[in-house]
């Protein structure tokens, strides 16, 4: 379960007043909070989990893809922004498309003007500033999507979290989305070893962190997991070059094979659609 960000007492006091101060984006609550922005952050927490981590040489993203049912495909969670930048999303996919399109335009325009790939921190600041506008203008709603952004530039590999509040921070490791606190617990335990990890070990850590966000009877497989990498290729890849790439399907099986099997003894998996928590039922 995701732990609450605020103390219990503060939340109780706040509950009484919440409804009067939460419909307009431009109204503070007496506690100095913007509830609409906080509700937007809730939308991010509804999306399926994504994990990001980096070493001295690589940055990687791992995401859990959701499917609306057995007949449907899995929702894409990662997007390439430029050769050296990629993102994983959690939240409203439509908002993600708009923001990632904007990121692509910014990256391209900066590359054209200055004949060099855009520094990753600049790019993230651009969407952070853009998202902040929507938290301060009347009649506009905040974006309902959060990103984990990985990239490589002159100052090495990077990982950033972007949130609809307009905040962005750089991290050694981070996770967003549903039950991401469990992944964060794993990452906090192991992050000190990430800097010197090989790419394979880094991805193994990421997969373990991502698995923490799953239900007991679920596991990562080639259909519901995608891996994004920026940096030199791993031993399991056929590519050359360090550009951002997304690995999905059978190509990720070698990475899944490096994982330590789950402690719970495997029961015959027979997931009925109604009990599968990762599946969103449409009305």
């Amino acid at each position, binding site marked *: 379960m995701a732990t609450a960000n605020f103390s219990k007492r503060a939340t109780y006091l706040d509950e009484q007043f919440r409804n009067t101060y939460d419909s307009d984006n431009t109204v503070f609550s007496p506690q100095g909070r913007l509830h609409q922005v906080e509700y937007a952050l809730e939308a991010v927490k509804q999306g399926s989990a994504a994990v990001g981590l980096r070493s001295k040489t690589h940055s990687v993203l791992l995401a859990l893809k959701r499917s609306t049912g057995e007949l449907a495909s899995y929702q894409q969670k990662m997007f390439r922004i430029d050769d050296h930048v990629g993102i994983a999303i959690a939240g409203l996919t439509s908002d993600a498309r708009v923001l990632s399109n*904007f990121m692509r*335009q910014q990256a391209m325009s900066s590359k*054209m003007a*200055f004949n060099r790939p855009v520094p990753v*921190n600049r790019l993230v600041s651009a969407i952070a500033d853009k998202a902040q506008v929507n938290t301060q*203008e*009347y009649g506009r709603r905040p974006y309902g999507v959060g990103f984990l952004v990985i990239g490589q*530039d002159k100052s090495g590999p990077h990982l950033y979290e972007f949130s609809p509040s307009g905040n962005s921070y750089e991290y050694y490791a981070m996770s967003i989305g549903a039950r991401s606190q469990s992944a964060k617990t794993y990452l906090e335990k192991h992050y000190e070893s990430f800097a010197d990890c090989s790419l394979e070990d880094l991805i193994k850590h990421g997969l373990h962190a991502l698995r923490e966000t799953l239900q007991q009877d679920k596991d990562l497989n080639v259909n519901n997991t995608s891996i994004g990498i920026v940096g030199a290729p791993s031993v399991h890849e056929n590519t050359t070059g360090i550009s951002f790439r997304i690995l999905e399907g059978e190509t990720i099986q070698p990475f899944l094979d490096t994982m330590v099997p789950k402690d719970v003894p495997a029961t015959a998996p027979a997931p009925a659609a109604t009990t599968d928590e990762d599946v969103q039922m449409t009305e």
Partner: protein
Amino acid sequence: MDHFPTNWGRPRNDAFDAYGTYPIAQRPYNGPTTDAFSEGIQHTQQPIVTGTSVLAIKYKDGIMMSADNLASYGSLARFKDIQRLHPVGTNTVIGAEFTQQDGHSLGPSEIHEYLSHVMYSRRSKMNPLWNSLIVGGFKDGKRFLSYVDLLGTTYSASTLATGYGSYIAQPLLRKAVEGNEDVITEDEAVRILEQSMKVLFYRDARSLNKYQIAKITADGVSVSESRSADTHWSFAEGIRGYGAQTQ
């Protein structure tokens, strides 16, 4: 919901804001563009105050550039202490401060690329920045030397020159430098430029015998104090009349 009536019914500009997401203050304005102020805007049609040649060469340790200190007002040698060589950041000579807050710096190649976009877009709006610029620099062990002008034309070579220099000095620079970029020492490079500046002073009627030499190497940028070339004008004593006519 868009609460601002001035934006209702306006076509959105798909070119840069397909989803109408920009802050309202920056939304594209589709109304009349002329106003009292714009009546007064002029477009550069001809240069008034001008500088003459700039020379630049690659040598063993980096780049060397020279330009005289004169800004002419037509045929009047009006401003005689103008510095036309400008350091940019830590490793380029031409223009303004280019190291940003977050530690990412723009090197000579990025600056040149940016300038070429600016120059060409001004030219395309029929309002040029009436300049011929040479951008020279040294970054990550590599020498950079490129030209960009008021038309947006760009090119690169081991020797570059603008104005009269491109006619009078360029052959001298090419003879001395081409093929020898990696062996020419600093003193040799200075002598090459000094010789060309001397010839230009003799032949360019809008030049001045007071110039500076800039050097960009791994150690950074330095622009010298103004100096002059030795010239001999004693032949003038024996001249009578103009050309073939001797009084």
